[in-house]
């Protein structure tokens, strides 16, 4: 675990009744990093992201493990402390930024409310408004487009950007974004990607974003954690995730399953089968039923997350075993 890790997750398990949405996940997010949580539907990435803020929606709850922000365990924080942490240290932009606004008051009024509620950040309202205008510039909006406007007059892309500006208003150290580019048009997506990149560079904010789109990961992320059916299957730098030889079969297969304008169509392959039902998991490795490299051991025991020298961690019997190198390359050409 890195010395300057801001957020540390250790063996976190989050459950909704008998179903475990997140199981035994450990990762660490360093200061100033752009970290991405990637996976398909039902993999637990959003639940994990919300756990970082202590925001797991009931009836979900943390079953075991811990989430520490600067060493402090979130589970032990009082409601007041959590609230303060959420406002000032970790901010969230939710997936439905579209519905995050109060429809009957102007955006400006909402910003004023926030400033009013946090005098410790901006002693003068004037200062707060000025800073908000700077943030609007960062998200490529002009104050007159936004201040006196009601949310119904803004397009989806604009609302997303305003939500980002508002999230940054209280100068958080970490910004968590849940699917920031999903449901946006191509040009708006491009804008949001560029904006996130800019704000990371100029404000040095630590960014954690959740997505299912590997292209967005390639554009923005420095470190990536890939989840499948509630478990962490691989984590490492973005180059490792895309190019390393020792990668989890799911990650390789997922990249080969993405139709894109640059990929060679003949090399694309779907992943057979479907994501397992969390209430009816197969024994052993959860990806085994769909995996081209599956060995007998894969349907018996769950693989462990093995961390390599560079911090690249993979949870796969075949990749991690001594014979792994040879077997994987033998079977790799399919």
């Amino acid at each position, binding site marked *: 675990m890195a010395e300057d890790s801001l957020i540390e997750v250790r063996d976190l398990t989050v459950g909704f009744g008998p179903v475990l949405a997140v199981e035994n996940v450990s990762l660490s997010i360093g200061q100033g990093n752009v970290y991405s949580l990637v996976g398909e539907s039902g993999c637990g990435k959003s639940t994990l992201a919300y756990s970082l803020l202590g925001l797991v929606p009931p009836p979900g709850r943390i079953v075991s493990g811990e989430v520490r922000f600067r060493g402090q365990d979130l589970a032990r924080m009082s409601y007041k402390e959590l609230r303060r942490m959420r406002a000032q240290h970790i901010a969230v932009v939710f997936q439905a930024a579209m519905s995050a606004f109060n429809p009957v008051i102007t955006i400006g009024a909402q910003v004023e409310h926030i400033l009013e509620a946090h005098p410790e950040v901006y002693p003068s309202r004037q200062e707060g408004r000025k800073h908000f205008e700077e943030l609007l510039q960062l998200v490529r909006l002009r104050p007159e487009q936004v201040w006196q406007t009601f949310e119904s007059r803004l397009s989806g892309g604009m609302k997303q950007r305003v939500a980002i500006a508002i999230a940054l208003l209280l100068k958080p150290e970490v910004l968590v974004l849940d699917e920031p580019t999903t449901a946006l048009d191509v040009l708006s997506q491009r804008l949001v990607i560029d904006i996130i990149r800019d704000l990371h560079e100029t404000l040095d904010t630590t960014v954690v974003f959740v997505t*299912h789109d590997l292209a967005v990961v390639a554009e923005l992320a420095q470190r990536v954690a890939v989840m499948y059916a509630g478990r962490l299957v691989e984590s490492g730098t973005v180059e490792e995730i895309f190019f390393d030889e020792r990668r989890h079969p799911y990650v390789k297969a997922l990249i080969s399953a993405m139709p894109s*304008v640059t990929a060679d169509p003949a090399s*694309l392959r779907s992943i057979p089968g479907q994501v397992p039902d969390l209430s009816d998991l197969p024994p052993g490795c959860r990806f085994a039923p769909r995996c081209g490299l599956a060995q007998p051991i894969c349907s018996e025991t769950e693989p462990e997350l093995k961390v390599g020298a560079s911090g690249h961690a993979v949870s796969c019997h075949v990749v991690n075993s001594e014979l792994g190198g040879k077997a994987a390359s033998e079977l790799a050409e399919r």
Partner: protein
Amino acid sequence: MSLLNVEHVSHRYQTARDDRPVLQDVSVDIEAGQTLAVVGESGCGKTTLGRAIVGLMQPSAGTVNFEGADIWKLRGSQYREYRQSVQLVHQDPYGALNPGITVDETLAGGLRYHRIVPRRETHDEVRRLLGLAGLDTSQAFLERYPHQLSGGQRQRLVIARAMALRPSLLVADEPVSMLDVSMRISILDLLKSLGQSHGLAYLFISHDFGVVRYFAAGGRIIVMFFGVVVESGPVEEVIARPQHPYTYLLLDAIPEPDPRRARRRRSEATRIAAERVEAYPADTGCVFANRCPFVRDRCRTDRPPSLTGDAADGHWSACWYPEEIPAAAVRAVDEEVV
């Protein structure tokens, strides 16, 4: 004579706030067995065009013709033929299936009404359709309800239903955009193979150029912007050498699934266009004038002509200055991503 063609279709929603026409003088041809892709962002009219072709919506101007005849004037057996020949594959596998009826009934309903097969063979035909779509044909599966199926299974069922009436043209509206990435190729492959084995024509609607490139290889594409067709041509050609600024910008803005190349500086043109992304479409002159990074005076006063049937075969664009568009919008397509 083309299988289906749309001539000078325009449409206005009566209750629209800004009273903007959702389709403006759109004309396209679809030949039998051909694939035509329609690309554009939300609000461009591509879904409305699909609905007009499938007969769910009657445009306020212009005609939709099936084998030469206006579909809104068809009666009796001619209408029945159109109705069975043109079917729809929706984008939302969760909304496209009736939650209150079983898999069996979903497929049998249309079969029975149109008497596609004799009544006593309905059951077998339902199972044949399921098999065609790669689904379980057991009795247990037939009695399931949509909420018991996975997203991929639901989409396959939607496709099986679309095939029930033995169509010759399928309108596929974003058929994979709501599915997990790992499944998209298999659904696209299913549609492609059905197209080949049954000689189907496709109107393939999508906002994703990558998906279009995979599915519609060898076919044609039209690009739409706020109800106007701005470019038309062969798929690979349009993607490799776009002739309209909007197409160029869309292609340039797509996130690149390769971390080494993704960080490259995007063109100045894209930066400008992204910032004008909320500018209203222009009412006079070229519809794209307010957002175009290459805009000139003429663009604001003269509207480029609409695409008509004559330009059907070549590579056409509604732009006065296509030479302004930088070459090589998309990186060389022969470099593999892994």
